[in-house]
């Protein structure tokens, strides 16, 4: 069990996170928040890179900072900007990190080809990483995080740069892994976590807004999300009065998904709220907020 206990983090006089209280047990946790909300900052504290300004982070009751290498031995981490040595091929880089992670050479020789296969890089095993595409680098990063079979897997925007096929592969991989470990992944792409996360954590205004299952998070918008079809020239006026969630063209007319909290009209088609709706609703721009 990993516990974040009233943690705050300031950079100088600039507070980024305040009084964060979280508990993690085995399962997938999706850290979902817009750019600059503090996802990476929280993750850097969980990986001992940053020290909280206030509060403490405990693993099985011990602060992770005093556990030192015993804690680092338990974690696998993919940073948001995953760095690499250009003159290494993925095998050499993973051998190097395996050595740092305290994995025996024999075990590493067995594990590395497996992992590279898992991220579909078995053909590029002898290619210098300096010649890799962004998505390929990212996949080496994912493989690297799983090298030591970590009890706590922490991934900062793991799907950035992955094509749809690789995204699906990654998602399946995670749900297999999460059975007996803590998996925390940050993203601002809702569909990345929608199908695999047991719980979603949303951060807003430096604090935890939700830490709940997708179902219960979506419940708050029950009966507030509608769809309507209209002509193009009506759309502008409509946007002034309602929070439009998505708009798509359909046979020369506009199909709009939106939020309405009162004066519901019978011609609107009520739809089931999704996580994306909640995200857009919670993180809407300030001027729009007044409309709803």
């Amino acid at each position, binding site marked *: 069990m990993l516990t974040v206990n009233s943690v705050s983090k300031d*950079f*100088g*006089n600039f507070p980024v996170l305040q009084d964060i209280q979280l508990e993690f047990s085995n399962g997938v946790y999706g850290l979902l928040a817009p750019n600059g909300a503090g996802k990476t900052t929280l993750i*850097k*504290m969980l*990986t*001992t*890179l*940053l*020290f909280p300004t206030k509060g403490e982070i405990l693993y099985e*009751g*011990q602060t992770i*900072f*005093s*556990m*030192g*290498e015993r804690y*680092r*031995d338990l*974690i696998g*981490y993919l*940073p948001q*900007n*995953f*760095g*690499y*040595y*250009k003159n290494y091929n993925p095998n050499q880089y993973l*051998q*190097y*990190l395996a*050595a*740092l*992670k*305290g994995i*025996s*050479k024999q075990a590493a020789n067995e594990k590395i080809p497996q992992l590279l296969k898992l991220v579909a890089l078995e053909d590029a095993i002898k290619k210098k990483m300096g010649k890799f595409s962004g998505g390929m680098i990212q996949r080496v990063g994912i493989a*690297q995080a799983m090298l*030591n079979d970590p009890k706590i897997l922490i991934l900062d925007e793991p799907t950035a740069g992955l094509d749809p096929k690789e995204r699906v592969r990654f998602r399946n991989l995670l749900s297999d892994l999460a059975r007996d470990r803590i998996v925390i992944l940050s993203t601002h792409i809702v569909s990345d976590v929608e199908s695999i996360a047991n719980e979603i954590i949303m951060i807003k205004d430096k604090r935890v807004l939700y830490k709940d299952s997708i179902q219960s998070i979506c419940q708050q918008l029950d009966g507030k999300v509608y769809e309507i079809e209209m002509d193009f020239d009506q759309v502008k006026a409509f946007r002034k009065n309602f929070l439009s969630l998505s708009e798509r063209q359909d046979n020369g007319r506009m199909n709009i998904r939106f939020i309405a909290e009162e004066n519901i009209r019978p011609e609107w088609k009520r739809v089931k709220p999704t996580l994306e709706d909640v995200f857009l609703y919670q993180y809407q721009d300030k001027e729009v907020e007044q409309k709803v």
Partner: protein
Amino acid sequence: MNDEKQFSYPDKKIIEREITAIVKKGKIERESFPRLLLSMYRQIGVRFLIRDRKEISIAVTMAVILMFAVLTSGQERYESSSSFYGIIMLVSPILYGVLSLLPFLHSKINGTFEVEMTCKYNLYQLAAFRMLIFSVFCFLLNTVWVLAMAMKFSTVHFVQAFMISTTSLLIFSLLFLYVFTVLKKMITKVAAVMSWIGLNALFVFIDSVVYQQLLVSVPWYLYGIVICLSAYLFLKKIKEFIIQNQREGAISYVNS
């Protein structure tokens, strides 16, 4: 009510075993320092401890060439009895400093710091281990050089030169470690090392007579004491660096 009485306690031996297991888990147990070094060496191996062989060879070669040049083309000047001591004091610390900074520079340039800092053996431990190796290496290289200098130049006395240069190397290594733990930003670290070297070089080239008189006039036992003390502090600090480098977050931001 009777339920409580019927609860059967496990065998005393089992209880004791469980208690020891729990206590063991709770205790923060760390390997002893030499054992940690040994397991680090066995685990990581020379291949990755000295990952940047190319850069290391370049630095060592340049230092050796410099040493050789001083040895073969140095002119003895009798008016300043020991014109070489300043140079002897400079070369090894510079080499040591460059070799010790390399992993941090690599990590910085390639952006691998975050991954390397969150591994079981992190970059700090790796770098400290290397500092230990390189301090011994630089000491040996330096000793050979000083010996050769003493044989070639009559004004260089081996024991004196050996004491002076060893002191210089040790004090520099120690300062280097302190600079590293106290200063947080890469630029300030590099700047601090550079200014120490620059200051020494300044003494050598500007007002060498007074400076070298000072070096020579310090009695040998004082050098001996300083050597012992700084060697002890160096080892202590390296140990701290390796064992307790994670009391703070690995990235410490300078609040300003």
